[in-house]
C-alpha cells in the first residue's frame, strides 16, 4: 500500500497550483454547505417544537398592563401563564433566561446531551440548560457558582442538566432564536440575583374554544399577539438571509466539480507517459487506476481536513453567532466530495483506455 500512496503523492505534486485552487474551492463549498445545512436543521427543529407544542394557539402578551391581563387570563382558565425573565448574564454575550414551571410543562425543550430539567426534582442548586459554546466550559452533571465577568457579582449556584439541541431557544419576543451562548434556568425559589430584569409572558390558549371571542378587544388592540404572526415573519426573514449562502454553495459546488474534472483530464493527459512506463514495467491497469484514485482521494481529503479548522474558526466569528454551522452538514459535504471523487476516478478509468496507453508506449 505504501508504494501506491508514494506514487499517488508524486503524481499529486505535478500540478500543485491546481491542487491548491481545488482545495480552496472545496473548502468554501464545505463551509457554505455547513451553514446551509445548519439553517435547515434549525428550521426543522423549530417546526418540530411548533407542532409538538401546538404553538398555533399561543399568544404573546404585550401592552402596558400585561401583568393585569395575565392575572385575568389565569383567572379565566385556571392555568398559569408562561413567563420568561431575562436577567443579567455572565457577560455581554451570555444571557440567563429564567423559565417558569409552565414553560417546561408546555414546551419540550430538546437537548443534545444530558437531560432536560425536571421541575419536580430537587437538584440542590438552580437547574439549568446551557448552549454549545458554554458546554465547552461547563460539564454536564456538575454544579458551578457563576459570577458576572465584569463585576464578579455572584449570580447563584447552578447545576448543569444538559445542552440545548442546536442552541435553538424559544424566544418570548421573536418565535425561535439561535443563541450560541445562553443559559435557561428554573428558579422557583428565586435564588438568582436579579438586576435589570425584563419579564415577558406567553399564553397558551389551546383548548379554549371561546378564547378569541372572549379576548377580541385585547387581540384587536395588540395586547395579545398571535404567535403565528412572529413565527411566519421570522421564518421568511431567515429564509431570505440564508438564500445567498445556498447560492454560493451551489456555485462553488459547480466550480469544484468542474475544477476536479479539469484536473483529472489534465493529469491523465500529462501522466500518460508515466502510465506508459508503469505498463512497460509490468503494472496492471487496475493498479494504475488505484494510484489515480488514491491521488484524487488525497486531493479531496486535504480540503476536508482544512474545512474542519476553517469551520471551527468561523464559529467564533459573526457568522457563527448568527448561523448554526452544522457538524452533520460538514460531514455530508465531505461525503459529497468523496462522491465527486468516485465519479472523477471513474472518469480517469474511462480515459485510461488501452488504446491511449499503447499509443504512448509506441511513441516512446
Amino acid at each position: 500500500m505504501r508504494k501506491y500512496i508514494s506514487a499517488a503523492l508524486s503524481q499529486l505534486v505535478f500540478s500543485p497550483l491546481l491542487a491548491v485552487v481545488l482545495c480552496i474551492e472545496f473548502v468554501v463549498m464545505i463551509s457554505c454547505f455547513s451553514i446551509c445545512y445548519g439553517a435547515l436543521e434549525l428550521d426543522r427543529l423549530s417546526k418540530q417544537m411548533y407542532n409538538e407544542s401546538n404553538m398555533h394557539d399561543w399568544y404573546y402578551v404585550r401592552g402596558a398592563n400585561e401583568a393585569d391581563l395575565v392575572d385575568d387570563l389565569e383567572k379565566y382558565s385556571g392555568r398559569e401563564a408562561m413567563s420568561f425573565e431575562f436577567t443579567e448574564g455572565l457577560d455581554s454575550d451570555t444571557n440567563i433566561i429564567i423559565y417558569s414551571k409552565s414553560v417546561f410543562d408546555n414546551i419540550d425543550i430538546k437537548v443534545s446531551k444530558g437531560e432536560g430539567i425536571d421541575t419536580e426534582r430537587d437538584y440542590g442548586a438552580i437547574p439549568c440548560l446551557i448552549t454549545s459554546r458554554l458546554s465547552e466550559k461547563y460539564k454536564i452533571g456538575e454544579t458551578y457558582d457563576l459570577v458576572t465577568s465584569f463585576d464578579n457579582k455572584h449570580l447563584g449556584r447552578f447545576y448543569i442538566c444538559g445542552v440545548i439541541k442546536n442552541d435553538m431557544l424559544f424566544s418570548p419576543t421573536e418565535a425561535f432564536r439561535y443563541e450560541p451562548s445562553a443559559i435557561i434556568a428554573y428558579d422557583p425559589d428565586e435564588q438568582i440575583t436579579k438586576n435589570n430584569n425584563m419579564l415577558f409572558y406567553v399564553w397558551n390558549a389551546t383548548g379554549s374554544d371561546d378564547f378569541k371571542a372572549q379576548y377580541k378587544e385585547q387581540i384587536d388592540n395588540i395586547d395579545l399577539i398571535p404567535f403565528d404572526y412572529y413565527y411566519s415573519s421570522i421564518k421568511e426573514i431567515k429564509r431570505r438571509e440564508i438564500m445567498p449562502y445556498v447560492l454560493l454553495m451551489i456555485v462553488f459546488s459547480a466550480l469544484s466539480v468542474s475544477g476536479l474534472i479539469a484536473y483529472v483530464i489534465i493529469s491523465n493527459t500529462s501522466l500518460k507517459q508515466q502510465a506508459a512506463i508503469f505498463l512497460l514495467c509490468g503494472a496492471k491497469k487496475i493498479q494504475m487506476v488505484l494510484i489515480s484514485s488514491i491521488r484524487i482521494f488525497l486531493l479531496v481529503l486535504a480540503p476536508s481536513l482544512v474545512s474542519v479548522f476553517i469551520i471551527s474558526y468561523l464559529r467564533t466569528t459573526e457568522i457563527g453567532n448568527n448561523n448554526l454551522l452544522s457538524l452533520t452538514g460538514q460531514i455530508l459535504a465531505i461525503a459529497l466530495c468523496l462522491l465527486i471523487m468516485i465519479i472523477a476516478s471513474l472518469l480517469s478509468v474511462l480515459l485510461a483506455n488501452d488504446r491511449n496507453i499503447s499509443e504512448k508506449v509506441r511513441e516512446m
Partner: protein
Amino acid sequence: MGIIAMFKDTYSLIRTIIAGDRIDVLWGGEIRLLCLIITVFLCIKAYKKGSINILKAIMITVTVYLYIYLMMPNIGQIKFEPDNFGFLLGYDDGVVFGQFWRPFYLMESLSEILDIYKTQMCYYMLITFIFTITYKRLYKLWQFFVFYIGTFGWIIIVILLKNQYHNGASVIFDLGIPIVLLPAMLAGWGLARILIALNRSKYDKLQAAGRPHIKQKEKGDRAAISLKGISQVKHLCLILSEIIRDKRSESAVAITLYLTITISFISIFTCFRVLEKNKQIYDDIDTASKTYEGVFINNENFLSSNDFLSALDTVKNEYGISYEGLRVQLDEMPLYYDVEGLGRVDDSLLLISDNISSGEIHINEDALYNGTHLNIGDECNIGGKSFIVTEIGEMTELCFNDFLSLNASMNELKISFDNITSSEILDAAQKEDIKNTLGCYEFESEQDRASEQNRSVAADQILICILIAVLSVLVIVSLFKQVMLSSSKRIAMFRLYGAKDVFIASFFIIYIFEYIAISFTVAMVIYKLCGGVFKSFYLNSESSVSMKAYAFGVVFLLSVIFNLPQLILMLKKKPAQLAVRR
C-alpha cells in the same frame, strides 16, 4: 437615421464614457456609424489592393449605408437595463408570437395593405435593385432568397433575444413586413437582372477587379506558399481553422475548458446578483437627490434656541428648503416610554405651529410621566416650564414659541429633523453651506448615501469577480498549457513557413479569446434562463451589463497574463525544439 444623427449618437456616447457615467442605452447611431466606417475602411483596402474598382467600392458603401439606414431601424436602441414593462399587444400566443404584429391578417383589402406598406415596398425594391447590381453573388434566384431570408431572419432573432433579455416586448416587429415586401424585393431583383442582361459589358466592367495600388514586396527565397504575403483576413481564417482542428484532436480538453470557463462566468454573475441585493435603488432618483433624512444638529454652534431658528430661516429662504419632524429632546426628559427589551426610552418633542397654543402640550398615548400615564387637563413640567395636556394622540407635540422659552441651555438639548427637502438638487458647495449654517453633523441626500453604499457594493462585486476569476484562471491556465503543448507541432510548421512571433502570439490570444467569448455567451444565456430560479431565491435585482462586461474583461486579461510565460517559452523555441519529425 441619417449620417448626422449617427454622429450625434456617437458623440453623446463618447461624452458619456469620458464623464465616467453609466451607459444605460445605445441609441443605435453608434453601431451604424461603426458599421459604415468599417465598410469604408475595408473598401479602401480592397481598392488599394486591386480586388475591386472604385465604382464597386462606392456602390458597396452605398448599399451598406442603405441597409443600415433603412433596414436596421427595426432593431431599435439597445438598453442595458431591464425594461419595467412587458406587454403582449392583445395576443396570447406566448412570448414568441405575442411580440409580433400580425396586422396582415387583420387587413380587409389589398389597397389597405398597399396604403400602409407602399413606402417600404419602394425602399426595399430600390435596395434589392442596387444590391443585385453591386454583388455578383446575388445574381441567381436561390442567392436572392438567401439574401431575403438573411435580411429579415437575423432581425427576428435579435428581437427575440432582446425581448427575452428584457422580459418584455421592448422591441416589436411587424411580421407582415417580410411577407408584404417579398414581391417588391423580387421585383427589384428582377429589374436589376433585366438591366444587367441589357448592359452586360458595363456590368462586367463594374465587377472587374481594379489595379493594385500597393508596392509589391520583393519575394525572397521562400517557398511559394508564404505566410508573409497573405492578407490579415486570411491570417485570421488560418488561425480559426487551426483552432477548430485543435478542438477535434483534443476534444476532452476543449469540452473541459468550455465547461470550466462557462461555470466560472455563471459563478461570477451569481455572486454579482447576490451582492446586488444590498444595493439601494430608487425609482425616483430626483426626489432621492433632494431628500435629506435623519439630520442631527450640533448645538454647540448656537448660543440660544433663537439663534438656531434664525439659522433655519436663513437656510429656508436662501435655498428654498422645507422640513418635516423638527424634534427636540432634553437631557433631563420626564416623558419616556417603557420598551420591552430596551427599558426606558426618552420621548422627544415634535415642534409644530398649528393646532396648539403656548402653554399646551399634546402627549403620546404610550408616554409615561414620572411612571404614570397623563390625561387631558393634567399638568406636567418640562424644561422648567409647566404645560397643560390638551390632547392624547400619536405624537408628543409642543408649540414653537414654547421651545424658545424652555429653561434649558443649548447643551442640554438634542435637535433633529426627520427629513429636509430642497426644491432643487443642491451641489456640494450649497450642501456644505447648509451643513455649516445649521450645524449638522452630516448633510447627505438619500441618493448620496445610496451612491456610497452602492459604490461599496460595486467594490465588493469587483473583488469577488477578481477572486473567482483568479481561481478559475488558474484552472484555465493548466488546461491551456495542455493545448499549447499539443499545438507545438503545428507551431513548428508555422515557423517553417515564415510565421513571425506576432502571428503565433495572435494565434494563442485569439484561441483564448474564442474560448472565453463562446463560454461568456453561453453563460449569459444560461444565466438569463435561470432568472426565475434566482427570483425564487429572493434575488430580484439584476446586476448591470457593464459589470458583466467587466467580468469578461477581467477573465480574458487574467487568462492572457497568466498564459504569457508559457507563450513566451513557446515563442522562443525553434521548430526543431518543438519536435517536428518527418
